[in-house]
């Protein structure tokens, strides 16, 4: 979605800007879900940023006298086995989980898309090598690969991020490569080449930005998956170290209590995961509608 080149005067700027804004409003109105998702996303980011300062209880403070109590006015989401307030823990965990998902996706996005773009543009050996690498990673059952990496390197937040990033790489590589291949025959590329730009310059300044929309959409869809991946790793015991609050671990711990009727320990973090993943997914859809209407589904 590229606007006019050089704004001539304020009026032109305003009209160029308001074009964009009108388009955005149009898409959002068409798609109430996207709008809702966007608001949700803002809410989640806000929670991650200021939540920890506003929570009623210290997420790490135990209160064994109040252990395993159901949701009430004192504890909105109830308490867990050690009497810790689940509401506070869920809110505080937002930062960590969001951070893991964003970091993992950002990492794989940057590395994968550059590698894929480079491979797509150069072709030849670079293409083959990168393609092979992507194929090899994809030949693993991805969750198992993530498990293996975290198990081998140790369960710290960084390793979870790396593992998730590695497992996600092939998608960006392939996508970027496909986009670049599609775009490199375009006229503007030829023009750029004729006017003396070096290959790397063409890639960075012309091709890559045009491939961005698709990649960004994929990234936003990926966020949900990255979150679920981290939760899954926590479930099998490869998650962050206790007592750090993290949604996945909270669900894993709470799962043991569900059959005994204490549903709230697992339910609320589970809903948090679900809500956030949903939000990311719909946001991704919205972004796609916004950036690349021809691909609207």
């Amino acid at each position, binding site marked *: 979605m590229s606007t006019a080149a050089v704004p001539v005067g304020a009026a032109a700027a305003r009209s160029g800007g308001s074009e964009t804004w009108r388009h955005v409003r149009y898409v959002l109105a068409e798609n109430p879900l996207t709008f809702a998702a966007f608001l949700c996303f803002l809410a989640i980011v806000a929670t991650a940023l200021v939540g920890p300062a506003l929570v009623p209880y210290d997420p790490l403070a135990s209160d064994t006298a109040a252990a395993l109590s159901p949701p009430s006015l004192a504890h909105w989401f109830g308490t867990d086995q050690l009497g810790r307030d689940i509401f506070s823990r869920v809110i505080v965990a937002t930062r960590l989980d969001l951070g893991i998902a964003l970091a993992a996706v950002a990492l794989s996005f940057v590395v994968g898309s550059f590698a894929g773009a480079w491979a797509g543009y150069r072709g030849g050996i670079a293409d083959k090598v990168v393609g092979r690498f992507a194929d090899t990673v994809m030949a*693993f059952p991805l969750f198992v690969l993530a498990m293996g990496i975290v198990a081998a390197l140790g369960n710290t937040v960084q390793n979870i991020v790396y593992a998730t990033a590695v497992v996600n790489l092939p998608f960006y590589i392939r996508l970027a490569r496909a986009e670049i291949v599609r775009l490199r025959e375009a006229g503007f590329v030829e023009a750029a080449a004729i006017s003396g730009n070096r290959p790397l310059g063409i890639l960075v300044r012309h091709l890559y930005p045009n491939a961005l929309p698709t990649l960004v959409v994929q990234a936003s869809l990926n966020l949900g998956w990255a979150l679920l991946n981290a939760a899954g790793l926590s479930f099998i015991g490869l998650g962050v170290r206790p007592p750090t609050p993290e949604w996945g671990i909270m669900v894993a711990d709470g799962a043991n209590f569900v059959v005994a009727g204490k549903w709230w320990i697992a339910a609320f973090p589970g809903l948090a995961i679900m809500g956030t993943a949903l939000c990311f997914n719909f946001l991704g859809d919205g972004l796609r509608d916004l950036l690349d209407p021809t691909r609207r589904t």
Partner: protein
Amino acid sequence: MPADGARVVAKRIALGLANALPSLAGVVVITFILTRALPGDPAAYFAGPAATEEAVEQVRRTLGLDRPLPVQFLDYLRELARGDLGTSLTTGQPVLEEMAARLPASLELTLVALLLAGAIGIPLGVLAATRPGSLVDQACRVGTTVGVALPVFFTGVLLIYAFYFLLGWAPAPLGRLDPLLDPPQALTGFYVLDAILQGDPALAAEALRQLALPALALALVAMAPLARMTRASMLGVLGSEFVRTARALGLSRFQVLVVYAFRNALLPVLTTLGMTFSFLLGANVLVEKVFAWPGVGSYALEALIASDFAPVQGFVLIMGILYVLLNLAIDTLYAFVDPRVARGA
């Protein structure tokens, strides 16, 4: 399909296989490195809680873990060439045997889940495509996406709680069959199929009942991509020229929708089916843990936690092979669904 069409397809398969080999080689190497990099000492684990340093060293020598890594790798390759995937240290059984015994369990679960997801997701996608932008469409999107946004182990536990514990509709999550029943003769390894082939529909029904909850948990995850892709694909096709022509020519709605539109929309759906299948094979690990399902996922998970190399390597290798075969199968299916492929277009 014309004769040279068959040749084209055969060439595609051969090419696909050739392309896959380097990836498989990469899989073997990476798995080996990863499993050897696992912290922890299987020798200490197996020497038992009371072992002294010498006892552990002794066990290490017995297990061949004291040899340098490249030597161990060569040994591994040699065994692979013989078809020997090594022996699991935790269960003491040959990995190939255990994988062969457990793979049908995982495959049956995944296939049933896929069928379920397809049976619900694809019609849903078609429905949404025929009414784009409507409330139904939005509801369809929300519904399918919710399934994908749930952590699959969470879904599993909730399903057990709701349908087994509270409502009593589903049977006990004890695995593939009630422990007091004898499994059917192992022909395919798929209990439902084997029971039917054996002429015991009651047993087949029992097996299906045990499959219900875990398959549902997996299907919820698989439904969304299928529904979405069907919808996207159908939308695209329904707007195309040839569909308009077909309508204009007065063909019945059924013919237009099913014979022309759906078949053409099928291609990306097929690819998504394949991808979903391979994804489910990996996601099996979590569901198998929750439902005590004796499949390869839980097998690999326990081995991973025990730093037991052989099963993890075997699991990943076999999954890799399955993935390659799956892609080939989809490529071949393409040839049947889309005659242009066979023509080499």
